């Protein structure tokens, strides 16, 4: 019974972690321009992240190491420094984009320009990290995140042609805007397969003191949680296709177009629901990414860490998230367009994947760490596939950014 409760809480948490400014923006853009054609990218990204999150959780539960600990220990500092720098940089961009997402929601709600909201938003993120516990952040914020289910409700109420949606779930070639199509596919994959997600998840396993008895629960949480998250992303894509695309809005390059999505279904409340969903999803993600920056540095250098400690008991750890949050607010405060930043950082996330995913192949097959709970054939095949995908993405991202991103 207790495990069941824990699993359902975990699932809700994972949904909260999955949906953020990147998945909303990329799914909306893809739906508006290509209809249901890119559903496969969401599905593929979701399957990949299910495998990685399950492995990160299993690694933490069995070895009592986080992924960052594992990479440093197994490969040494000289190798660890590359994924460390790449993840710190990509997370910085993503954190900035999430703060931008909350700031846009605040602008839509009040009419005051988003750049004025960057620092207040950063302050609230910081305050919650400063005063809150891991449980509060993990469970409280993600409960609120359930409001994003409104996208699924809206998608069903629009009565899409489900056969057409299913056809889009199979990879297919574009009929127009080829470069843009592939760039969108890369961005969607980057938004779904986020390194911060699985690294944060393994830190969470340690914070919640997981042990071997959690292996089953971990599998359920990873599978169900990420599937629900992916389901909501598909919901966003369907709504964007049927509302924006059908009304001739094919280029979502201005965030003011986004709240129109829910209005035909829910009227004025659709506007409110969109703004609240965007604010909560991005705020939750900002908390997680900022914490992940501190986890990464503290675990990488072996400092005392833990969100349940008081800041004075882990000053180094607290300093890292404090600096991360306020530095990430600067580009938004200076007026950098959050939507452009989001799409850019999602593509860059995809390009950075090999650095963080290759270690999985070694860590999850090393019986020093996972003993009898090593990867099976299917998990290993999945990691190898994700690594190959990661290398392809890393190669094509920059050219696609130039030809399809602008």
């Amino acid at each position, binding site marked *: 019974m207790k495990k069941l409760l824990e699993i359902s809480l975990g699932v809700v948490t994972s949904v909260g972690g999955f949906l953020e400014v990147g998945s909303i923006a990329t799914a909306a853009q893809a739906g508006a321009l290509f209809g249901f054609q890119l559903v496969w990218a969401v599905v593929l990204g979701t399957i990949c992240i299910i495998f990685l999150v399950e492995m990160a959780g299993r690694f933490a539960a069995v070895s009592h190491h986080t992924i960052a600990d594992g990479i440093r220990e197994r490969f040494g500092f000289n190798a660890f420094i590359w994924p460390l720098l790449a993840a710190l940089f990509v997370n910085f961009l993503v954190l900035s984009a999430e703060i931008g997402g909350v700031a846009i929601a605040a602008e839509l709600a009040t009419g005051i320009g988003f750049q004025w909201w960057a620092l207040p938003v950063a302050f609230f993120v910081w305050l919650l990290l400063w005063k809150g516990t891991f449980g509060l952040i993990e469970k409280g914020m993600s409960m609120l995140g359930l409001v994003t289910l409104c996208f699924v409700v809206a998608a069903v109420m629009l009565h899409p042609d489900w056969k057409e949606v299913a056809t889009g779930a199979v990879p297919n070639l574009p009929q127009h805007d080829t470069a843009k199509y592939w760039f969108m596919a890369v961005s969607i994959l980057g938004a779904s397969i986020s390194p911060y997600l699985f690294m944060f998840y393994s830190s969470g396993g340690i914070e919640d003191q997981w042990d071997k008895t959690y292996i089953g629960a971990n599998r359920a949480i990873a599978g169900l949680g990420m599937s629900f998250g992916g389901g909501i992303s598909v919901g966003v894509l369907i709504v964007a296709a049927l509302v924006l695309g059908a009304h001739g809005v094919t280029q979502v390059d201005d965030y003011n177009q986004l709240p129109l999505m829910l209005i035909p279904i829910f009227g004025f409340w659709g506007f409110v629901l969109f703004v609240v969903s965007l604010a909560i999803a991005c705020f939750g993600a900002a908390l997680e990414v900022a914490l992940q920056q501190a986890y990464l540095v503290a675990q990488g250098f*072996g400092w005392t860490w833990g969100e349940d400690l008081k800041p004075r008991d882990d000053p180094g750890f607290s300093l890292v998230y404090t600096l991360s949050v306020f530095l990430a607010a600067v580009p938004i405060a200076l007026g950098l367009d959050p939507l452009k930043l989001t799409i850019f950082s999602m593509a860059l996330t995809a390009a950075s994947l090999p650095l963080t995913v290759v270690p999985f192949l070694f860590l999850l097959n090393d019986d020093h760490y996972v003993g009898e709970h090593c990867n099976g054939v299917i998990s290993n095949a999945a990691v190898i596939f994700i690594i190959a995908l990661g290398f392809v993405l890393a190669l094509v991202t920059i050219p696609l950014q130039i030809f399809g991103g602008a």
Partner: protein
Amino acid sequence: MQLLRDILDKQVVDREQVKIGKVDGLVAELRQAKPPRVIAVELGSIALGRRLGAVPGRWAARLVARLSGKRQTRPHRIAWNKVRDIGVDIEFDIDVRQTKIFAWQDWLREHVIGRIPGA
């Protein structure tokens, strides 16, 4: 036991289980006609800098010297005979409060973090 695989880069804790750093370097003693012997582990940015190369090592030493106001700086060392347990972490029979390893964290607590309300 293999030094590089099982010791280097592992988490170090003191006798109160406080996480104090990673094994950033190993110090071995060369003996005549006998195999070399590990006498200490090194922790901290100077040891880490040296891992990356001679130049980053010198930079780290210079930076630490500037920040701490001392002329000469060396990496923190913990004698190998203080080791108590090697498991998920390596436990040494020391109290981190009696070393200088956390001097920067203490400074941070006193001058920055501790001054912010609610810390």
